[in-house]
């Protein structure tokens, strides 16, 4: 059972405390890891939370790949360590080359902030241990650049390898193939635009994020 989760903070990250609270509410341990350090403090899993790493300058996530901690996260991921990128964290993972494709501005040019229904497409990854394919979850989105794009070849390959983790049932942002989340070949690195840490209590309107975070804790 994974016990300790490192939650990465870049300058401009703003969802680290929500994420830490959510993990602690599930009896996991969580602590902030500063982007300027190499030390992952022996955590069992990494979350790159939402926000605006390095002010989203140049492109969302583009500057973050130069942060020292990304070198360590690269090695951690290659060794099979569980890594979850949420929203801006997903953008960081694509820019860092840990996940394919890119996230461009929403079709419709609107910042979207709403509860969204997503469906598990593949559960063969660190978020899927408590779920079965076809499960539908209510998880909020909160983004301007969430329109997932990749080449047709990459899409075909990901479909063949069961790497599309979530799809929107009602595509809000124009994402290719309704993609809301994907994973790497090994299934230990997942990126998703919706925010599971904001769907962890009835007060927030949904508790569907809990099963995803519990799965990460058990990965």
């Amino acid at each position, binding site marked *: 059972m994974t016990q300790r989760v490192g939650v990465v903070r870049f300058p401009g990250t703003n969802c680290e405390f929500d994420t830490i609270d959510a993990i602690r509410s599930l009896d996991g341990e969580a602590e902030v890891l500063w982007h300027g350090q190499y030390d992952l403090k022996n955590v069992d899993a990494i979350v790159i939370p939402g926000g605006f790493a390095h002010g989203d300058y140049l492109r969302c996530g583009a500057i973050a790949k130069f942060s020292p901690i990304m070198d360590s996260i690269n090695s951690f991921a290659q060794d099979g360590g569980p890594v979850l990128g949420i929203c801006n964290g997903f953008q960081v993972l694509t820019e860092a080359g840990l996940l394919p494709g*890119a996230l*461009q501005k929403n079709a419709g040019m609107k910042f979207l902030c709403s509860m969204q229904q997503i469906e598990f497409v593949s559960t063969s990854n660190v978020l899927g241990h408590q779920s079965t394919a076809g499960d539908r979850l209510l998880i909020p989105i909160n983004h301007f650049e969430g329109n997932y794009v990749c080449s047709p070849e990459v899409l075909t390959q990901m479909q063949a390898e069961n790497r599309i983790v979530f799809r929107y049932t009602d595509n809000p942002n124009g994402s290719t193939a309704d993609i809301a989340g994907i994973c790497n070949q090994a299934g230990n690195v997942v990126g998703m635009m919706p925010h599971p840490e904001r769907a962890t209590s009835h007060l927030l309107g949904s508790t569907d994020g809990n099963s995803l975070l519990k799965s990460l804790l058990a990965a």
Partner: protein
Amino acid sequence: MHFEVKVEVSPREGIANPEGSTIERALPALGFVTAGNVRVGKVIRLQVEADSSDDAKSLVEDMCSRFLSNPVIEDSLVEVLEE
């Protein structure tokens, strides 16, 4: 030698450019009914030290492919302006 270089980063052909489409839809309101295919990108200007104009260009092209543009969604055009 110092070279002044201009980089134009634009959305790749076939990639939706919602910003351009939005501007395109707004132009007719001002009477500009003949405008089409509006694409929005960005311009980056920088100075580099290199032995020749060609060297300056290839240096900045390398920056583009690895950092200044995201080849998944963007094209880049490098122009060396002056020494």
